[in-house]
């Protein structure tokens, strides 16, 4: 197994929010999308995705609605709320400042 960078605290939320910015998705699709866009560098513990989704639903960053899935069963489809969109903007800006600062230090 090759070593992969571990996910900093709270980053999963940011990734999920970003994923849902592209449109409503179910849990599996979110995991897939993250994996694909990061070309598998960031492989998340997929189980932990679900509590994160529920938590964000409780905070009303995302909303859930039931929809028929590819397998013909009802499955929860998550979508970004206005509150979630604001959260995404704030966290993206924060992330940018953080990485920029860290990069500067590392290159100094």
């Amino acid at each position, binding site marked *: 197994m090759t070593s992969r960078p571990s996910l900093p605290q709270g980053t999963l939320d940011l990734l999920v929010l970003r994923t849902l910015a592209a449109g409503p998705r*179910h*849990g*599996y699709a979110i*995991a897939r999308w993250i994996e694909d866009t990061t070309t598998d560098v960031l*492989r998340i*513990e*997929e*189980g*932990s995705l*679900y*509590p994160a989704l*529920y*938590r964000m*639903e*409780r905070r009303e960053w995302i909303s859930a609605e*039931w929809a028929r*899935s*590819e*397998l013909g*069963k*009802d*499955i*929860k489809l998550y979508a970004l709320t206005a509150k979630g969109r604001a959260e995404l903007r704030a966290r993206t800006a924060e992330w940018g400042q953080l990485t920029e600062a860290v990069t500067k230090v590392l290159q100094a």
Partner: protein
Amino acid sequence: MNDTGSRFRGKRRQDTTPGVLDELEFHLEMQTRRFEAAGLGRAEARARALERLGNIDDVRRACRALTERMEDDVRRREWWHGLGQDLAYAMRAARKTPLFTVTALATIAIGIGASTAIFSVVNAVILQSVAYDRPGDLGVIWNSYGQAGLGEAAVAAAEFADLRERAHAFEDAAALRSQFTSVSGECGEAAGCEPERAVGYAVSPALFDLLRVRPAMGRPFVAADGAAGAPAVVLLSDAIWRRRFGADPSVVGRSIVVGATRTEIVGVLPPAVRFPDAPVGFLKNPADLWLPYDWTRNRTDGRGNQNLGVLVRLRPGLTMAQAQNDLDVIAQGFRTEFPARYAGPGINWRIKIVPLREQMVGDTRASFVLLAAAVTFVLLIACANVANLMLARGVGRRRELALRSALGASRPRLIRQLFVEAALFAAAGGLLGLALAAAGVRGLIALDPGTIPFLGRATIDLTVLIAAAVVTVATGVLIGLAPALRYSVADPHLTLADGGRAIGGSPLRRRLRSALVVGEIALAVVVLVAAGLLVRSYAALSRIPLGFEADGTAIAQIALPRARYDRAARVFAFYDDAIARLAALPGVVSVSGISPLPMSGEGWSGTLVVRGRVPVPGEPEPHAEYATALPDYFRTMRIPLLEGRDFTAADRQGAAGVVIVDRTLAERYWPGESAIGKHLRPFGPPKDDTGWSTVIGVAGHVRNGGPRKDGEPQVYIAARQWGDLGLVYVARAAGDPAPLPAAMRVAIREVDRDLPVARLALTPDVIARVVAPERFSTLLLAIFGGVALVLATVGLYGVMAFLVSQRTREIGIRLALGGRPGQVLAHLLGEGLRLAAIGIAAGLGVALALARAVRTLLFGITATDPLTYAAIAVLLLAVALVASYLPARRVLRVDPVQALAP
């Protein structure tokens, strides 16, 4: 119905939707298929998918917990949202029925306001009155001479000294004695520097340690302060510190003149300490200042010189009964040592302890408990009234409540709606009531001329606020209960199908409303009977002839300082000068001096020796009230001089001793013969045959203690043969006496310009204080009785109006079938009177059962006074008749056609 909708959505999700497991199962299946597509076998693909997912149990548990919390959130939000809706709804409904709203709010505000105000007073006067640490451990010691003699006689210094040494039950004991004095010399810049009369007490230095209070500034007394030859020091009360020294913080260490002695101020006590804060036996007035004195120094004084009040604090854990046992043992010792004084025949002597609280508030407790009970009844009547109003309004809203019910609002929701309305009314009424109470407390304090101890301390404090909140919540529950009860058994389908017309008089509702109104009337009867008894008692008290005529007179009380008036000649010269100047005042027709003034709260009594009287075994020794008087006293006070002559200027020191007695004394000791020329000797035991005074006159009896007490036989001593330093000068005006007090002050100032005048007043104002507490409770109870009557009347009126409106159809049918309106009216009146009669009967029964409790407050009538009970019953019947007639007469205008129209 928004709220019920979302509630149902919530239920569906919880019960039937796929849970976390389905979501995870879907995830696994998709992942497995992906790995299969990549070429793995089904089993291996599944294993890889599981591995990527992690611990499923953990994930599931976390998600479940989050789901549950989310559902709780939703429920809570719905509940609050519903509550908000209920509130908004209740407010809308309140606005739509302004008459109902105003009536209900006013009723609740009166109920809560009155009870809060009375609680505030009871809290100050009884509950918090003795505000010292562990007040239950504080007690007062008295010599007691059984039933016939004095129950609470003062303690001699020798007795006090023995008690301190022999008692085991007490932590310590302190003695005190009042020392009316004056303060002069330095004072604050703000205040004038006139000499001022002050209420002083000479106290054991341990007094404040016993009370567990320390000066707010300066130092407490120490034991050495009371010793002979110690520098003169004084502790000031907060009151005199503010009054005379303008609350100057640098007053400690300065010296003032107390009496005629230069004295150093060592400290100032906190505002709450005026010991004795309320009368403790003969120690009547709150202190302005305290002077330290070690009373055990006087233990060589005679044991007959009983002039001290004694305060003790029990050792922790001991009871008053144990302390009394201890005192009984000591008393037994006294009897053995001094049999002549304590153990003679007919001397039913003991030492007794009275709890300080009992001593201070015992007299006022009964009337305040009665007031508290009355105000509670008024509050209950108010609650019943509002509940009744809400039931009545419920009729008008039946359709709308039925509609809500049919649309899915559950019964608990509807009941909650009713309680929200009740709570809203209670809260708004409670706030209004609190404002009312704040004004009420000020009014109550103003109503009493300072005769009720601790009343002035009553305020709306935290305790009172908490009590008001509790009362408000109870009110909310009480007024919500009846309507809730009503709807908890109602059938909405029936109500809706009926179209909201004629079933308002459902038996349950009618019974509820009738029961409420019967209860209201019964409670009102109880309050009114109590008020009636007190009013009749007060009237009886006012009718008692006092034996003198206070109207038209004014008084000036003066305490001559012993330091300057140290010889009898000086005192008598002051009398002559003062009387001459007072008599010269314009409008004064006669003037004299007396001590003590009748009904002034001060008293003076003692034993008496009647010359030639043979002691009768079992009959108490002669005992009388004493007074010293100047000539013209009887004329000035219009006390009839029945026989003999008045004192004259010739009755002075050196001349033969003369006294004037009252008719009671003359008739008791010289029955059937003239008292004139007979001899008696005030005070002292019969030693020899000298020192007799001759009776020169017989006057009418005066009720010195006020109308409640007959008083003892009376002896007047010639003031010029006695030399009283504290005479009260009385002047009678030809016309209006109002300008007299000011003029008298000027006249006295001309005699001695350094003399403080203790008290200047119109005599009726002074003696009014004797019955002021009775007046206070009678007036308040009468007010509560009036409020109770009005509320009960409104309640009955409401029920009758309701009955009439609900029966319009029935009445229409009766009329259409040939019933005469008069008959129908009589029927309705009968209904109202029936309710009133039941209520009155129940109320009279309760009043009779409770009557014993007011017995001690009554004078001149019994607690079962038939006239009062009958008058109240008749009054309520009459009021009930009117309250029934006004709404019922509407039947006379009912048009059968309209009433029966579909």
